[in-house]
């Protein structure tokens, strides 16, 4: 059997697992790895030297002298008072810690819920306000007047005075739908402002004609109209609570952010 020279030994050693030998040297290899490492150390002289060196390094590092401290680190009472801060400082420091980490997502969820509530409470009011004039233009419904929402016609009536043309709600002539659709802007206004040319008895049938329609629609239409009106209180409540929750969540988030910015201690990472 040929004895390998140093060069071939090194080449062979390069294929050996040095980390395994290093672990074996300090007793960190176990089971099959320990057997493998023991075999390597027995067969390869460089692995054996490596194991001995690792042990020597570990021992030597442990024996390195400790540097004596250069100062006394005890606190004076002034330093301690400065470090502790006021009660408010301590509270802010507490909430900036990891123990309050769950508050942040909860506040974020509350903010989302508050925003959704605000939007839900706010949107129908906008919708009612925008649809109300259009409805009152083309229908003659008493509940609208009763509900205390003056129609544009009523508003123009007050402007034009008692001699002005009666609004459809007051028994006036309702412009035909076709006219309302074909005319726009001033034409429509002109139609309303025209004095009644027909006799009152001629107006009566028209009023009678309109009466059943309003009566008929009373069940469905009134319900549809009263729903926004009757739920206004609920919507206001939702809007109020939503805004309240949003503001509170924003306050909590801002407080946490400010506390974290000022009192977060990076050494506690």
């Amino acid at each position: 059997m040929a004895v390998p020279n140093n060069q071939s030994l090194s080449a062979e050693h390069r294929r050996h697992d040095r980390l395994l030998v290093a672990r074996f040297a300090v007793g960190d290899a176990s089971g099959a790895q320990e057997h493998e490492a023991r075999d390597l150390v027995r067969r390869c002289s460089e692995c054996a030297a490596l194991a001995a060196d690792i042990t020597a390094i570990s021992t030597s590092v442990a024996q390195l002298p400790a540097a004596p401290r250069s100062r006394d680190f005890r606190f004076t009472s002034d330093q301690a008072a400065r470090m502790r801060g006021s009660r408010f400082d301590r509270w802010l420091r507490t909430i900036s810690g990891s123990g309050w980490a769950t508050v942040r997502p909860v506040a974020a969820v509350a903010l989302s819920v508050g925003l959704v509530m605000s939007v839900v409470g706010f949107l129908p009011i906008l919708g009612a306000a925008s649809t109300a004039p259009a409805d009152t233009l083309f229908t003659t419904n008493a509940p609208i007047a009763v509900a205390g929402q003056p129609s544009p016609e009523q508003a123009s009536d007050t402007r034009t005075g008692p001699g002005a043309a009666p609004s459809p709600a007051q028994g006036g002539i309702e412009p035909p739908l076709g006219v309302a659709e074909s005319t726009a802007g001033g034409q429509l206004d002109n139609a309303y402002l025209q004095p009644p040319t027909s006799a009152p008895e001629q107006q009566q049938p028209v009023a009678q004609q309109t009466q059943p329609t309003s009566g008929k629609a009373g069940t469905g239409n009134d319900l549809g109209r009263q729903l926004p009106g009757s739920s206004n209180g609920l919507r206001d409540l939702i809007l109020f609570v939503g805004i309240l929750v949003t503001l509170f969540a924003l306050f909590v988030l801002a407080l946490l952010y400010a506390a974290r910015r000022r009192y977060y201690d990076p050494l506690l990472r």
Partner: protein
Amino acid sequence: MREMVDVTPSDSLSGVDPATGAADAAPTRVLKPNDVLQHARDKALVERAVGGDLEAFNEIVLLYQDYLFALVVRVVRDRDSAADAVQEALFSCYRNLDRFRGDSFRSWLTRIALNAATDVLRYRKRRPADPYPEWEDDAWQPPAGEEASPERSAMKRHTQRVLSEALAEITSDQRKAIVMYDVEGFDYQEIADITGVSLGTVKSRIHRGRLALRDLLGKNMELLRE
């Protein structure tokens, strides 16, 4: 209820006794009776300090300042920076004493001090002016014993210097792990908890660090073999 345990601070607490450090270096964590007493004592002191007792906190400082300084100076390789880092760590510890949760106050404090040391290293990396001034400072070498011959003590100093220089060359993560394991006597799991990495990463850092030390020492390995 406040638990008071009267335990005289032992030298092993300072962590500067290499023999103790080596003896504590076990692969698995086993709480020894001394550890239990130490934890109980620390908790009692912390409770008093949280209640505003400055003397109790200064007692903690007395117990750990040597250990902390010895640990940090090995990591940052500069006594002034190490002193500043330890001071910062103790300030932080005092401010956040009420946040201490867990069994080992020593581990918690070590973590804070190592974070402070890491910050020093980061700062130095950004502004490298005088990377390792400690190399030229022999003042922190221990005084030689009367029985030691001048040649022997000179050789020992040279060996320690060579090893310190090699330690300064490996990565800071490897250096921290090796110092905590070989010098301060933490076990793998404690180092993993303190540094916030996995157990395997700690072992890998230590073993790879030792291999790197061996490569760096080269011919100077002869000094260590003696």
